């Protein structure tokens, strides 16, 4: 017979080692492997090159992964449904092109260009989701067609010049602006306080309803660890990163980081705490059961494809902003594969129904850290690809092994 499994906030067993062993046996490791992986990556690169764990490099890393991570957030949503989206990279490129053309060629205001690009993304998702649901064509094929078609659409939108520079200050600032020091602290402190309130409120209401609760110590630890990480991150990004101490200070949290974090928080909230989020997991876990429970499976699927493509568009906007341009390779190459790899490395199952939005952050950090660390070591990109591939394979293998353990446990 099994022991109580630690879930959500509830019923954490007193002995953490026992709890861990139990989760391993049941195949519910979640994000644990990737966090261990990140620590190993940090140790390895730092021991080879002492520039790795510096405020400058880590802040750069966060900005580098913001676009990939945002696209990956959408990919996590898709994977939770048990589907796949191969068009995400090209949709990001198309959105970047649409925004650049609207703002640079038609001289429209930045806000209009940005909204226009996101709407284009959402419409692409609507079309793909509707097609998959209506004609029962596998998402793999529909989005593969999308991969080709949206690439063509992007080239068409860009026109003959092929590359459009963006000079609009607002759009450039999306990724490159640095918040004033005080505003960075406000974001950090408010975030931590809200998180703490939610956690304690949940603890209190569970106690009031006489439901099992973990020890108060455990709750305090959780809030402490999350709070300390967030505030340490803000502090680090508020340090002057300019190597020339006499020069103009480079300091403050980049807006790209705030935008990415905001997406993560919003979508984690939606998936964990709303009816819609529950239905996403249900459809990903057992579509037939979801249908019998009266859930409108097609509506969930179409909505998710729309959200994912809109997020891909946002990622494309972030990337274009960072690059100050949209060009013929926007959204090409490894953008799609990195976004999918990030979701899977972060702990979201390819088999549907398991994973958290946060895996987009964790996985993007792993891929970003490997790329960034190898750049510091001036390694060739050939090695970078091979190492990233190996990490992805490892992550998928852990996922498959967890699934096998799950199927063997309990019966």
């Amino acid at each position: 017979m099994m022991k109580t499994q630690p879930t959500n906030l509830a019923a954490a067993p007193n002995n953490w080692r026992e709890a861990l062993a139990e989760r391993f046996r049941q195949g519910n490791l979640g994000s644990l492997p990737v966090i261990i992986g990140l620590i190993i990556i940090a140790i390895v690169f730092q021991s080879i090159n002492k520039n790795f764990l510096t405020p400058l490099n880590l802040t750069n890393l966060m900005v580098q992964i913001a676009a990939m991570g945002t696209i990956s957030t959408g990919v996590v949503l898709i994977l939770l449904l048990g589907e796949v989206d191969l068009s995400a990279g090209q949709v990001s490129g198309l959105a970047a092109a649409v925004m650049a053309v609207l703002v640079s060629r038609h001289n429209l205001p930045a806000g209009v260009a940005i909204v226009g690009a996101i709407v284009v993304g959402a419409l692409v998702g609507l079309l793909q989701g509707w097609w998959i649901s209506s004609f029962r064509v596998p998402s793999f094929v529909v989005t593969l067609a999308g991969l080709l078609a949206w690439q063509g659409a992007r080239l068409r939108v860009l026109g003959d010049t092929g590359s459009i520079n963006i000079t609009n200050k607002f759009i450039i600032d999306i990724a490159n602006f640095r918040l004033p020091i005080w505003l960075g602290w406000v974001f950090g402190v408010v975030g931590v306080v809200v998180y703490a309130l939610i956690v304690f409120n949940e603890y209190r209401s569970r106690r009031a309803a006489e439901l099992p609760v973990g020890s108060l110590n455990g709750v305090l630890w959780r809030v402490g660890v999350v709070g300390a990480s967030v505030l340490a991150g803000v502090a680090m990004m508020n340090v002057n990163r300019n190597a020339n101490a006499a020069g103009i200070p480079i300091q403050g949290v980049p807006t790209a980081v705030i935008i990415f974090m905001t997406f993560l928080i919003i979508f984690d909230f939606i998936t964990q705490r709303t009816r819609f989020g529950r239905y996403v997991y249900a459809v990903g876990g057992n579509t037939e059961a979801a249908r019998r429970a009266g859930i409108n499976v097609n509506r969930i699927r179409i909505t998710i494809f729309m959200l994912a493509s809109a997020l891909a568009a946002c990622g494309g906007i972030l990337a274009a902003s960072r690059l100050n341009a949209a060009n013929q390779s926007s959204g090409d190459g490894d953008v799609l594969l990195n976004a999918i790899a990030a979701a899977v490395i972060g702990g979201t199952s390819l088999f549907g129904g398991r994973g958290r939005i946060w895996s987009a952050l964790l996985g993007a950090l792993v891929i970003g850290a490997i790329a960034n660390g190898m750049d510091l070591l001036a390694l060739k990109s050939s090695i970078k690809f091979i190492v990233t591939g190996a990490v992805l394979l490892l992550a998928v293998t852990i996922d498959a092994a967890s699934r096998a353990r799950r199927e063997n446990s309990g019966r």
Partner: protein
Amino acid sequence: MTATEAAMPVLQLRQVSKRFGAVQALSNVDFEVYSNEVVALVGDNGAGKSTLIKTIAGAYKPDEGDYIFEGKVVSVNSPRQATDLGVETVYQDLALCDNLDVVSNLYLGRENVRRSGLKSMDLLNETEMERRATEVLRDLSVKIPSVRVQIANLSGGQRQSVAVARSVMWNSKVVLLDEPTAALGVEQTRQVKDLILRLRERGLGVVVISHNVADVFEVSDRIIVMRLGRRVATFHTARSTNEQVIGAITGAMLPANAYGEAE
């Protein structure tokens, strides 16, 4: 004789027929289940058990005949209409989501929420759902490690129990169980049988489809035998033998009628 014999059946089908192309799946079948009663529906493969259950569950609409619930003729054209009446079905494949915990499965599609204005953005009231789920499972003496354990980590018997518990959480009056003990071990089968008896104690009308005549004798009050799309015999479990029931299933020995005479 069961105490409810004289009372009105909670659910009744009258002269129901159903064809699929050339196949007459049901011909003029009567069916009734009372509150506080376990009725077993037995028969060989192709006897019409599944068609009958699906008709009761609202998945099939009969070509002819009446669906009578609590004495009134009603129109049931979809599973949703059946559940709205209080008729719940537990299919053999259970329809649970492996990746969700017990509470989420018990409430799937009927979540307890705080309204937010937009239906899909309603906030889940986890505390309330967990409190009531714990209560229901305790009432039914369903033993699981925790209501927050994922279905994937439960045994077959525990899963079946969760599926049954889900069907009785919503003021249901009739529960249909399709082969509830198929593929279960001895101990797990016993757990599920105990659960079936507790459903009866709660005043529900329980319909059990089963292949296993021995199991049927342990839990049922009445046994209805189907054969080639017809109802061929009815037995009071307490006053019948294994041989009589098997004889009726195979057609080797049809009894005189309900409770003794041929139909």
